[in-house]
Every structure is written in C-alpha cells, then in structure tokens.
C-alpha cells in the first residue's frame, strides 16, 4: 500500500503550512475520495465540484482530525459525507445520486457493489441513511416499521460490508 498519511505526518505537514498539508492530502487521497464521492453525485463534473468544496472547507479545520478516533483517511471520508449532506440541505437540487429518488436501480458503485446480494429492503435502508442522510425515525415512518427494525437492517448491512471487505 502506498504510504498512508498518519496523524503525525499530517501534524508535521501542518507545521510546514496549511497549503502544503492540503496538497499532500489531495495527492494521496484525492483519487480515493473522488471515487467515494461518486456515490453521492450524478456525474463526474458534480463529483469534481464536491471534491473541490470538500478540500476547501476542510483546509481550515484539519486539526479536528487529531481529535478523531479514526484514521486520517476515514476521518476525511466521514467529513466529506457530512459536507455533501450539508450542501444538499442548503440546495436540495444540487446533487442527488441516480436511482435514489427516481426509482432506478441502484448504481453498483462503491459500497453498493458490496451489497449486491443484500435484499432490496437492505439496499433501500442503506441508500436512504448513508447516501441521502435521512434520519432513522423518518425512514421508519415511511416504511411503516419501527426504528429498531431500521437500525437492525443498517447493522446487517454493516456486517455484510465488513465480511465483503475482509
């Protein structure tokens, strides 16, 4: 594996300058994050816009990675998702993944490629919670089920993903 950026490396890079730290993160993780973002964006152009927005917004708060229990890359992924969901709340027409609102089948991209064998209900719950950032309560009401059921389905999806990744 190409060299992972640890928190110590990021800290040293920040001492050299914020721009330098962003550059290092982009050159190491830009491609990985770009692929991850495509789950949330309908096109490459929109994914690129999101990538630019994510790095620009994270630049001023890279230090928060040190407080996280996650690795630098996992922290980047979770922060990227938060920024995407925030952007979507501010402008609902900005981005939406194909298939999420239009009844099309799920694109077999990224984490969805690990859930191809899961039931349609599992994929629906994962898509609504992960990609569309919906609350478990809202989804439970829509599905006419209780919140615990939604939580259980989500955990099933997580276990499937873990097994597929291992």
């Amino acid at each position, binding site marked *: 594996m190409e060299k992972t950026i640890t928190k110590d490396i990021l800290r040293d890079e920040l001492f050299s300058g914020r721009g330098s730290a962003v550059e290092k993160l982009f050159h190491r993780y830009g*491609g*990985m994050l770009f*692929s991850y973002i495509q789950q949330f964006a309908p096109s490459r152009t929109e994914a690129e816009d999101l990538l630019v927005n994510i790095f620009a917004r994270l630049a001023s708060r890279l*230090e928060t990675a040190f407080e996280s229990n996650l690795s630098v890359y*996992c922290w980047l*992924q979770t922060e990227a998702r938060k920024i995407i969901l925030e952007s979507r709340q501010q402008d609902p027409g900005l981005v939406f993944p194909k298939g999420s609102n239009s009844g099309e089948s799920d694109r077999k991209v990224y984490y969805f490629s690990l859930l191809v064998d899961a039931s349609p209900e599992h994929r629906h719950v994962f898509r609504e*919670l992960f990609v569309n950032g919906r609350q478990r309560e809202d989804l439970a009401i829509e599905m006419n089920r209780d919140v615990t059921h939604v939580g259980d389905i989500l955990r099933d999806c997580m276990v499937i993903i873990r097994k597929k*990744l291992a």
Partner: protein
Amino acid sequence: MNIQQYIASGIIETYVLGLALPEEASQLERLLPFYPELQAAISDFGFQVELFAIQNEVPPPTGTFSRIQDRLRELPAVKNPVRPAGRASEDKKENEYVPVRESSTHIRVHKYWRVAFIVVFILSKLLLFGFIYFLLQYRHAERDLRALKLQEQTTNKANLSPDPQDGEK
C-alpha cells in the same frame, strides 16, 4: 458487557462510516479507553476501508487541485499551527493568509539530508586531496628511483670500462 458480541454487532462499521447515532457514538467513545480491542477493531476496519478505497481509486480530472488552490486563496486568514519552540513568531502572524505553494519542479526532502550531504561533500574533498597528495608522492618517488638507477648504471659502466692509459703501457 460481552465486548466481542458488541464488536460483532456492526457498531464499529456504523461508527467508522459515520452512520452511528449520537448516543451510539458516545457510548462507543466512553468504552474505548477501557477496551483496547475496540480501538483495534476500529483500526482494522479503517484499514479495510482504506484498502477498498485504493482498489476503487479514480484520478480526479486534471486541474482539480488548481481549483482547490484558487478556493484556498479566497479563504479568510487561517493561522497555521506553530511548533512549541517557535512561539515567539506566533504573535507576528496574527493576520496570516493561508499559504498555498505553487506547483514547482523542486522536491522537498527531510532536513537530515542536508547534514548527510555536507558529510559526504567533506569526505569526498578529503579523498580527492588524499588522492592528489599520494599521486604526487608516487611520481616523486618514481622519478627519484629512475635517477638512482641511472646513476647506478653510470657508476657500473665507469667501473667496468678499461683505463686507456693502461693499454698503451
């Protein structure tokens, strides 16, 4: 609490992917200091996530980083962290803008390479001077040896050749 059962429930994956509810996340974070296996499980799954991301990597379009740099220039001032030893200069940088390095043909190396380079440079110079010194010594010695041999030959010839006056007698 059966910690292995807790780990197997999918909580680690939910937490790493950012899908845990606030109460689930805070419960996990409270348990972390007491159960090192939880941090190990987070690291393991994080590693798998990173590996999966590498396998699915797609290079962003060219020019993406220039767009990020442009956005960084527009940002309001953000102070860089300062190393503990360098606190004196911290006050001077109150209104510092985000420094953005232009892409260049230069490379950045660790500062220890400077020391290594100086040592190698000095050693190479010492070796060069040593080489020149011994070369000159060798040439001098060779010249002296040749002169001695010549002198010896001349002496031998002089000793062997008969005295012409002795023959006449």
